[in-house]
Structure formats: C-alpha cells, structure tokens
C-alpha cells in the first residue's frame, strides 16, 4: 500500500464515528498498538521537543524502507504518534518525504495541527520527515 492508501484507510475508519468521544476512544486504542521503541533508544536525545508530554521516536531502515518505533508518557499523544507511524512506517524515504498530512484534517484532529498546540503534532511530523531525509541521503 502507498502512504496515501494507508491514509485513506485511516480516514475511512474514523468516518465511522459520529462524536468526539468515539474518535478519542479509538485513538486511545490505536495508541495501545503502537510499535514500541526499544528502551535503548528511549533517551533524552530522542525526545521530540514542543510536546507537553514526552515523545520518543526512533527510525531504522530495513530493505530501503524506514521503520518507525515510538513511545509517549501520555495516552492520547501515543494515539497520535501511532496514527502517524501507521501512515509513514514501512515506506521508502522518498515516499515519506513526499507524503502530505492532509488526512489529519479529515479524521477530525485538525485542532492538533496548530503549531501552538501543546501536543507537538507538527514537531512529530517534522521529526519523522527528518529521519526519512537522513536515510534518503544515505541512499543517494
């Protein structure tokens, strides 16, 4: 599946819900399925700045595809990063770099996109893309 196809899949799942509670409950569920970061990478260096809660992200490259793992001490933040990772993980660096993030809007999480929000969603996206950029440079 392309990044876009995964994103459409997520949009479809979220379209089943008609109120915020169901959306957030689902997000919390998704957080529980987050591919967890190996404890050795759970360092201060890997913390994403700009979040009120702590978020750690790590990236590996396997067969020229970037695999993300992460964790957070807040459950909702965990859900948000899980959604992002589901969309971006297991794709080539180039695909990740070219992917847009409009789907966040469409799953009713637009409010989290503002750079002034304390959750740092914007910083998370930036960090995922930075990892992709680093691996892209390696491939070139």
């Amino acid at each position, binding site marked *: 599946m392309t990044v876009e196809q995964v994103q459409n899949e997520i949009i479809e799942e979220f379209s089943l819900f008609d109120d*915020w*509670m169901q959306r*957030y*409950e689902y997000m*919390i569920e998704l957080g529980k399925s987050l591919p967890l970061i190996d404890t050795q990478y759970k360092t201060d260096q890997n913390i994403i700045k700009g979040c*009120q*809660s*702590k978020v750690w992200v790590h990236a590996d490259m396997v067969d020229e595809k970037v695999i993300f793992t992460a964790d957070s*001490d*807040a*459950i*909702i*933040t965990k859900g948000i990063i899980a959604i992002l990772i589901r969309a971006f993980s297991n794709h080539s660096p180039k695909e990740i770099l070219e992917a847009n993030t409009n789907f966040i809007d469409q799953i009713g999480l637009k409010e989290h996109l503002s750079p002034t929000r*304390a*959750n740092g969603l914007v910083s998370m996206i930036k960090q995922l893309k930075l990892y992709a950029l680093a691996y892209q440079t390696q491939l070139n």
Partner: protein
Amino acid sequence: MTLDLTKIRADFPILSRKVNGQPLVYLDNAATSQTPKQVIDVIADYYQRYNANIHRGVHTLSQEATDKFEEARKTVQDHFGIEKTHEIIFTPGTTHSINLVAFGFGSLLKTGDEVIVSALEHHANIVPWQMMCERSGAILRVIPMTDAGTLDMKAYDKLLNDKTKLVFVNHVSNALGTINPIEEIIEKAHAIGAAVLVDGAQACGHIKPNLQKLNVDFYTVSAHKLCGPTGVGILYGKEHWLKKLPPYQGGGEMIDEVTFEKTTYADLPHKFEAGTPNICGGIAFGAALNYMNAVGFEAIGAYEDELLKNATDRLSKIEGLRIYGETERKTAVISFNIDDIHPYDIGTLLDKMGIAVRTGHHCAQPIMDYYKIPGTVRASFAFYNTLEEVDQFVNGVQKATDMLR
C-alpha cells in the same frame, strides 16, 4: 452575605459561550480571570471618547485621560491600603514589576550578600533574581517546601542571617494555591534588617491585602488576575526603597531634564514609568477593582471556599486521585493527578467537554521536581463559577479517567 450568581454571571459575556459544542466551564482563573462588561465598557469608552497621551498635554482629551489614569492610581491606593499615591508604579504586570526591583536591587548588593526565595515560586519570581545574583555576586538561598505544599518555616528561620538583604516569596502559590504566611515572613526578615518583596499575582483576585498593615516593602499585582485587562499591573514599593533604586528603563516621562552631558530623573512614580504607559489598561484596572469591591472580597472569599471544599470532597472520591497542596490555608485551586495518567490526557479530554483547565508544570518546575511528577491538572475557581460547574467538572474528570484507564 451571599453572592447573586445569576446577576454576576450575566456581567461576564464570555461565560455564555460554547466550546466544542458544550457550555463553557472556565476553570483556568489562576492563569487569567474573565472580564465583566463593566470593565469592557470602560475600555470601549476610553477609545471612543478620550483616547489621548497623558501628562503634559494641553488639550482637553489629554487632560481627561490623565485625570482618569491618575484616578485609577488612587483606586489602587485605596484598595491596597497604600500610604502614598507615588508609591504605586504602573507596569505591564507582575513579571515586569519583579524585574524592575531585581534590576535595581542588584546594584545595592555586593558579593557574598544573601537573598532568599521560596520553593513554591513561579518562574517569574525565580529567574529575575538568579539574573540579579549573577550580576551582583549575591547568593540565592531557598526556603524548602513540605509534602503538604507549604513552606518549611523552621528552615526559613535558619536561613535568615546578617548577610540576608532581601526575601521574595509569593502571597499565594500559583501551582498549588497555598497561601503563604507572609506576615511572619515579613516580620522575621525585618527583624534582621532584610527587605521583602511579595508577589501578589495569585492572591489579589481572592484576597484584599492591606499593604501598610502588612508592612511589606514591595508588592506586585497583575490586573488580569482580578477581572482587569492583560498587560497592566502595579509595583508597590515603600517610598524610601523606590527612591533608593535606580531607574529601570530610560525614556520619556521618567526624566526631569535631559542634556547630552547629564540627565536628571523625574520624581516618583514617573521615574519608573518610562514611555507611554498602558493608559487604557490602567483605567480599566481601576474599573476592575471597583467591580470586585462592589461584589465584595469577603463574600468572594467565603463563596470560593465553599466551591473549593465541594470540589475537593467530590474529586477525592475518584479512585487514584491525588491532590497536591493539602493545607487549610489555600485559595480555590486544585492541582491533581490520577494514578499515572498524564495531565495532558485529562486536560485534552476535558477540553472536548467544554471544560477549561490548565495542565503542565504551571511555570513552577521546582515544585513538580519535588513531587517527581511531569505536571498536574490544575482547576482554579473564581467567584463567578457555580456548584453546577463543579458537578460538570467532577463528572468530566471521571469520564476522562474511565476513557484513559
């Protein structure tokens, strides 16, 4: 004396708005209080009828604006029981007031002098003093806190010595709501010849202190914590201290005579009011004090205690909930966590229910470090909140907790 809540709430247009489709329950009053239409009207009136720069203007508008601005200074004087009008400096707020004193006081200190801060401070009452100590070579000492979120006063006694020059402490802790024993702190500091600055930002919306009676040397207030606008506040300082401190900023208004060889400074309070002040803000600050006095601080205090007691009792029944700051002497602030649920999660879900609280370290990281927590959820009440809102809040916290467990 009871409050007429229906009437009071009708004074605050913002309280009838909806947030995320739900009626707003505003419990972030320690961050900023809401503004009644009596104050909003004064702001509109200023810009519609007599907006002009003050002092020294020959025209009518300037004179009217000057009169109103100076009238506001008198209102502040009456409200806080201040002896002399010129002991009141209008500033952009508490942080600015503290920086003004820290800047000036630093020039009076020498290497090895000691100053004392409390462990319960907002960063605004820590960082300016650290900067002052770096410049002057003075040593910063800290009054430790206890598990209950109060100051360890025995430790304070031991910190005081003949090198102590200044003590700065907040009247009320912003993160926990603890009312500090400032009377005792002031008396003991004075006994060894040290001055005291009290940061009144969190107290002034709930308590009406008489500064002359308190005998405090400096006291700071922000108007937006007591139903006034943001960007304005005061520094109160005893006359002899304000005369001793050098000016903080140079500019218009603060001068007596200027030549390129030498400038002499204006008398108090203008010496510390460089540039065009927040004229409208100052006038609105006066209006806010008038509004709150009309409601009555005694009634406000009693009613807020009732809200606090009710909310504390009911919240405490939620399994795993811990309240930080458990002293009898506190304002209507509840700082809490539930098990190891991150405060950010609770705050986010409460917001979806229209309930505004604050989450995080509340600009008081040393307190969070003491409890070894990343932050808390803080609900802070004002006299316009209702028992029904306490209900909605407690139910909201329960609902959020159920979702997150």
